[in-house]
C-alpha cells in the first residue's frame, strides 16, 4: 500500500484533503511517525483512524469493533490457557488434548494479532471469572478445571458465540477492507474450532440432552446440545435465534426438493449476534 498514492487519489475528489489533516507537512510527518512505530500489517488500520478523524466518519468505529473482538479473544485464550494442563484436561485422550492445545495456540495468536493491529488503541485484558460468577469465583462453572465434560461444554459455547459475534460485526468493518478481511479470516477459524469441539462432545456423548442427539458439527435449530442446569439459561442465549429457516425473505425449507427440513435449513446458515447480546452472554465471566 502506497500511502502517497492514496492521498493523491483522494485529492482528485477532495482537493482539500490536506487541510483536513491540518497541513500537508503534518500529514507526511504523521505517516512517517506511523510507519516507524507500528507493524506493516497495522498501517491500513492506523490510516483509517486518521481518516475517521479527518472526515468525522465513524460508522461503527473500526477500532471499537476490533477491541470488542480482542476482548472475546482474551476470554477464549485465557480459558484455553487455564484448561490445558488442568486436572480435567488430563483425563482426556491424547487426541483431545492435542486438539485443545491447537485451539489454545490459535486463540493466543488471535490476541497477539489484534493487539499488534490496534497498537496503543488496544484495550487491556479484563479480569475473568470462568465460573461465571462475576468475580465471586463461585459461579455455576466452579470446578470446571477438574471436569473435562464441563470444559468442553464451555468451549463449545465460547466458540459458537465467537462465530456469531464476529458475524454480527462484519458490516461495521466494511469501511476498512483490510480489517474486514482479517476479521473474516478469524471468523472462519472460530467456526473450524466449533466444528471440532462439537465432534469431541459427540464422541463423549455425555451431557447431551436426549432430544438433541446426535450433536453435529453445525448448529441444529437453537439446540445447545448441552445439559447443564446450573447455567442452562445463560448457555441457551448463545444459541437463541439460530433456529431461523428464512433468509432474506427466502424460505429455505423444501427449496430444491426434499433436502431441507427445518433442521437442515437452520444448520446451513449461522446467525449473527449483536454486540449487546454478546456482552450479555460474556458478562458473568468478566469481573
Amino acid at each position: 500500500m502506497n500511502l502517497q498514492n492514496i492521498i493523491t487519489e483522494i485529492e482528485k475528489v477532495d482537493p482539500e484533503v490536506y487541510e483536513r489533516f491540518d497541513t500537508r507537512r503534518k500529514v507526511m510527518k504523521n505517516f512517517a511517525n506511523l510507519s516507524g512505530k507500528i507493524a506493516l500489517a497495522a498501517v491500513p488500520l492506523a490510516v483509517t483512524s486518521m481518516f475517521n478523524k479527518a472526515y468525522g466518519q465513524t460508522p461503527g468505529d473500526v477500532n471499537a469493533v476490533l477491541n470488542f473482538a480482542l476482548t472475546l479473544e482474551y476470554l477464549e485464550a485465557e480459558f484455553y490457557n487455564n484448561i490445558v494442563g488442568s486436572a480435567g484436561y488430563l483425563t482426556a485422550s491424547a487426541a483431545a488434548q492435542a486438539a485443545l492445545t491447537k485451539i489454545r495456540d490459535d486463540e493466543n495468536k488471535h490476541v497477539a494479532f489484534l493487539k499488534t493491529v490496534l497498537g496503543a488503541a488496544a484495550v487491556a485484558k479484563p479480569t475473568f471469572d470462568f465460573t461465571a460468577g462475576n468475580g465471586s469465583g463461585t459461579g455455576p462453572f466452579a470446578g470446571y478445571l477438574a471436569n473435562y465434560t464441563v470444559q468442553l461444554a464451555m468451549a463449545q459455547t465460547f466458540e459458537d458465540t465467537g462465530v456469531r459475534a464476529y458475524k454480527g460485526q462484519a458490516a461495521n468493518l466494511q469501511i476498512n477492507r483490510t480489517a474486514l478481511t482479517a476479521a473474516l479470516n478469524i471468523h472462519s477459524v472460530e467456526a473450524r474450532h466449533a466444528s471440532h469441539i462439537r465432534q469431541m462432545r459427540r464422541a463423549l456423548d455425555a451431557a447431551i440432552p436426549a432430544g438433541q442427539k446426535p450433536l453435529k458439527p453445525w448448529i441444529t435449530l437453537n439446540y445447545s446440545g448441552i445439559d447443564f442446569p446450573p447455567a442452562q439459561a445463560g448457555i441457551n442465549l448463545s444459541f437463541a435465534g439460530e433456529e431461523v429457516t428464512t433468509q432474506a425473505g427466502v424460505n429455505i425449507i423444501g427449496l430444491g426438493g426434499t433436502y431441507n427440513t427445518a433442521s437442515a435449513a437452520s444448520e446451513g446458515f449461522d446467525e449473527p449476534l449483536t454486540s449487546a447480546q454478546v456482552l450479555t452472554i460474556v458478562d458473568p465471566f468478566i469481573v
Partner: protein
Amino acid sequence: MKGTIFSKSPAKDPAISEYGMQRRNLLKYFGASAALISIGTACKKDDDTPASNGGVNLGSGDVGILNYAYALEQLEAAFYLQVVATPYSGMTALETEYLTDIRNHEVGHREFFKAAITAAAPSMIIPALEVNFSSIDFTSRTSVLNTAKAFEDLGVTAYNGAGQLISTSGNGPTYLGLAGKIVSVEARHAALIADLIANGTFAATTDANGLDMARTPAQVLAIAGAYIKTQIDASNLPS
C-alpha cells in the same frame, strides 16, 4: 475551505454559486467516502483481474458477487449430490450422516442464491453450470474426501476474499451478512472433512497469526475451473 474551485470557475449567477456550494458540501461528505472505498482499489492495481473470455458472465457489482457465490454453491451441491447418490466403498454410517447433511446444506445454499438473485436482478442470474467431475473417483474414499476438503477450503477462502468486494451501501451490508452466515457453515464442513481424513487437522490451514486465508475471485476460479465445464467470465466483478 478556501473556495479555490469557485475562484477558478466563477459562477455567473449567485444562485448557481450557492447551489454549487451545496454540491461542494455534498462532495465533501459523500465524495470522501467514495475516496475511502477506492483506497482498496488503488492498492490493488497490479492484481490479476481476469480478462473477458466470452464465457458465462457473472456480471458486475453486488449481483456479480452473488452470481460468483451461486457458481461455487452449484459446484459444491452437484458434488455432494453425487457423493451421496453413489457412496464410496466403506462409507460408515457416521460419514453417510455427515455427507448427507452437507449435501442438504449445499443444496440449500445453491437454491437460496438462485432465489435471491432472481428476486434482485432476474435478468442477470447465471444459468445452471455444467460440471466436470472426470478427475474424481466417486468409489474411492480418499478421492472423495480429498476433493471435498479442497472444495470446502476453497469455499471458505472465496467467501473470506469476497467480503471486501461487496458494496457498503444499498443491499451491500445485507449481502455481506448473508455471506457471513454461509461461510462459517462452510468452515464447519471444512473442519469436519479434514478431521475425517486425519483427526485433529480441523484448523491445520491457519497461518502464523491463526487466520484462515482469503482468495480473490480470479484465484478461486482458476482452481474451481478444473471442475466446471462451463466457461465463466469474471472480468466484470468488483476488485
